[in-house]
C-alpha cells in the first residue's frame, strides 16, 4: 500500500517536476478519443512532454483558443469568420489550420430497412422534408422518421452545409444528444434514418451513397473515404494560434507522420492519405 501511494505520488509529481512542456488540447467530441490515443502514445515515447486532452465540442474548443486557455483546439468543422475575427482581435493572428484526419459521414438505417442506397439529392430531400415516405426512395410504405445530431455538433453543421446545401432541416427532425444516442434510436426505429461518423456505426446498417443518379453507390469504407469517392467526407482539424514551434511542432509533426496517422485508422477514422 505504501509503495502504491509512493508510486502514485511519483506519477503525480514527476511531470510537473521534470516536464518543461505541457500542451493542452481541447475541442471536438468527435475527435476526443482520437486525440487521447495520440496523446497517450506520444507521452509514452516522450516522457518529458505532458499533453492534456479534453472534449466539450468544436465551438467550446475554439472559444478556449480565443480565450487563451488551450494551446491546441480540435474541431470537426472549419473555424467561422466570426471566430477568426475574435482570434485576430485578441492575438492579431488568424490562427493556423492543420488537417489531421478524414472522416466519412455514414447514413444509418434500421437493419430490416430494405433501402440499400440513396443519392445525395435524395438524402437532402429526406432531411429537408420533401420526401416523407420510404416508398418514394424504394422502401416500404412508411413515414420516414428523421434523426439528426444536436445543432451544437460539428457533424450537424457539416451535414447541413454540404448535404442540405444550407437549407434548414425539417422541423420534425429529432435531434439526439450524441452519436451513441442517435445510433441507439435508429437501431430501435424500423422507419428511422440517421447520420454520423463511420466510427460509431455498429448494430445498424449503413446505406450506400451515390453522388448523383449515374454515379456508383459507395459504402463509407476506408478505401472510399480515403480516395474521396465516398461523397460525404470531411476533414478533422486542429487549430493553433500561430505557426507551431518547439514541443508543439514536434507533436503536430508526429501526428501527421505515418505513425500518428496509423492511429487514426485504429480509432475508426481515416488517414489523410
Amino acid at each position, binding site marked *: 500500500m505504501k509503495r502504491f501511494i509512493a508510486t502514485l505520488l511519483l506519477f503525480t509529481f514527476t511531470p510537473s517536476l521534470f516536464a518543461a512542456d505541457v500542451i493542452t488540447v481541447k475541442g471536438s467530441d468527435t475527435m476526443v478519443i482520437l486525440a487521447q490515443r495520440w496523446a497517450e502514445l506520444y507521452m509514452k515515447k516522450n516522457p518529458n512532454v505532458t499533453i492534456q486532452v479534453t472534449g*466539450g*465540442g*468544436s*465551438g*467550446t474548443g475554439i*472559444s478556449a483558443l*480565443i480565450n487563451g486557455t488551450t494551446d491546441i483546439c480540435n474541431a470537426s468543422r*472549419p*473555424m*467561422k*469568420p*466570426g*471566430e*477568426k*475575427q*475574435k482570434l*485576430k482581435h485578441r492575438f492579431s493572428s*488568424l*490562427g*493556423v*489550420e*492543420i*488537417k*489531421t484526419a478524414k472522416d466519412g459521414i455514414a447514413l444509418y438505417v434500421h437493419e430490416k430497412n430494405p433501402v440499400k442506397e440513396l443519392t445525395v439529392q435524395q438524402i437532402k430531400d429526406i432531411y429537408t422534408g420533401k420526401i416523407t415516405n420510404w416508398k418514394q426512395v424504394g422502401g416500404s410504405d412508411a*413515414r420516414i*422518421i428523421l434523426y439528426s445530431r*444536436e*445543432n*451544437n*455538433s*460539428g457533424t*450537424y*453543421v*457539416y451535414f*447541413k*452545409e*454540404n448535404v442540405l446545401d*444550407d437549407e*434548414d432541416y425539417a*422541423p*420534425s*427532425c*429529432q*435531434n*439526439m*444528444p450524441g452519436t451513441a*444516442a442517435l445510433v*441507439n*434510436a435508429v437501431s*430501435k*426505429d424500423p422507419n428511422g434514418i440517421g447520420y454520423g461518423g463511420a466510427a460509431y456505426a455498429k448494430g445498424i446498417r449503413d446505406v450506400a451513397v451515390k453522388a448523383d443518379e449515374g454515379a456508383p453507390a459507395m459504402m463509407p469504407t476506408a478505401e472510399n473515404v480515403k480516395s*474521396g469517392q465516398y461523397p460525404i467526407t470531411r*476533414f478533422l482539424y486542429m487549430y*493553433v494560434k500561430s*505557426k*507551431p514551434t518547439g514541443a508543439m511542432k514536434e507533436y*503536430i509533426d508526429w501526428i*501527421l507522420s505515418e505513425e500518428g496517422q496509423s492511429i487514426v485508422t485504429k480509432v475508426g477514422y481515416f488517414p*489523410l*492519405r
Partner: protein
Amino acid sequence: MQQSPDISNTLMKKRFRIGEFLAEKVITATAFLSFTFIVLIFVFVFRETLPLFSPPEPVATVEELGEQETYGDLVLTEAEQAAESKEKNKDHVDEGVTVENLAGDRWQPISGKPKYGLLPLIVGSLKVSLIAVLLAAPIGILAALFTAAFAPKWAKEALKPVIEILAGFPSVVIGFFALVVLATYVQDTFGLQYRLNAFVGGVAMSLAVIPLIFTISEDAISAVPKSLTEASLALGATRWQTALKVILPAATPGIFAAVLLGIGRAFGETMIVLMATGNAALTSADPFEPVRTMSATIGAEMAEVVFGETHYHILFLIGSILFLFTFTLNAVAEIFVRQRLMKKFRGD
C-alpha cells in the same frame, strides 16, 4: 426567538462567548453567501441577455479577413479543394434578432437566416411539464396521504426514505432509461409513430417529480394538527372520511405548493428531456409528437455556440425566461405555504 430563557445564562458566561460569536458569524456569512450567489447568478444571466437589445458587432467578411495559414504538407485534390472553398467562403452574417423572429414558430439557430422562434420551445416545455405533473401529482399526493394517514409505522418508516431516495436519482440515469427502455415500451403499447415524444419525456420526468411532490405533501399532511383528526374520528367519521374530508382540505395549501414546486422542477429539468423527447422543435398540441424544451435547448446548444453572438445571447434569454418562471412558481409556492398554511393553523 427562543433565546430569552438563556439570556441570564449567557450573560454569566460572557468570557467564553468569543468562539461562539465567531462560529455564529461564520454560519451567518455562509447563509448569506448562498444568497449572494443566487443574486450574482441572477445578475449574470440577465447581463448576458442584455446585448441582444443592442445591434450586434459587425463580422468581417471572408475577403476582409484574408486567408488563414495552414500547416502540414497535405496537397488537396481538386474535389476536396472545391468542397473546402465552398464551405469556407460562406459569409456568416450576424444580423441580430427582431421581435417578429423571436415570436416565430421555427427554431433553426444554425442557418443562413437563423430563426429564433421561441414559441415551439415554450410550448414544448409546457407540454412536458404538464404531462409530468398530471402523472406525478395524483401519485405523489395519494402516496403522501397513505404514508401520513394510513400506513402502519413500519411501512411509513420504509416508504418515506425510499421514495425520497428516488429524488436523489441522477436524472441522466432516468433519461437514459427512458431513451432505451421506456420509449420502446410506450411505442409498442400505444402504436406510436414517434418513439421519442413529449409523453415519454413526461412519464420519465414524473419519476423525478413524484418524490418532490410526495415529500412536501407528506410534510403538509403530517403538519395537520392531531386535534382535527381526533375530533373527526370522535364524531364517528371513518378513517377514509377523515383523510378525504378533514386532513386533505386542511393540507391543501401545502399540497398546492408541492405541485407548484413540482412544475418548477419539471420545467427546469434538462437531462431527462434532452434524452427522451426527441428534441424536434414542433409547435403542436399532440402529446405523442417529439418536442424541444427550453432547458434542453440550452443544455444542447450552449457548448458549441459562438461566444458573444446573437445565438449565445438568445440562449441566455431562454435562461432568463426559465429563471423568472421557476422563480415566480417558487415564490408563489412559498407565499402559499408561509402565509396561508401558517395562518390557517396558528393565526386563527
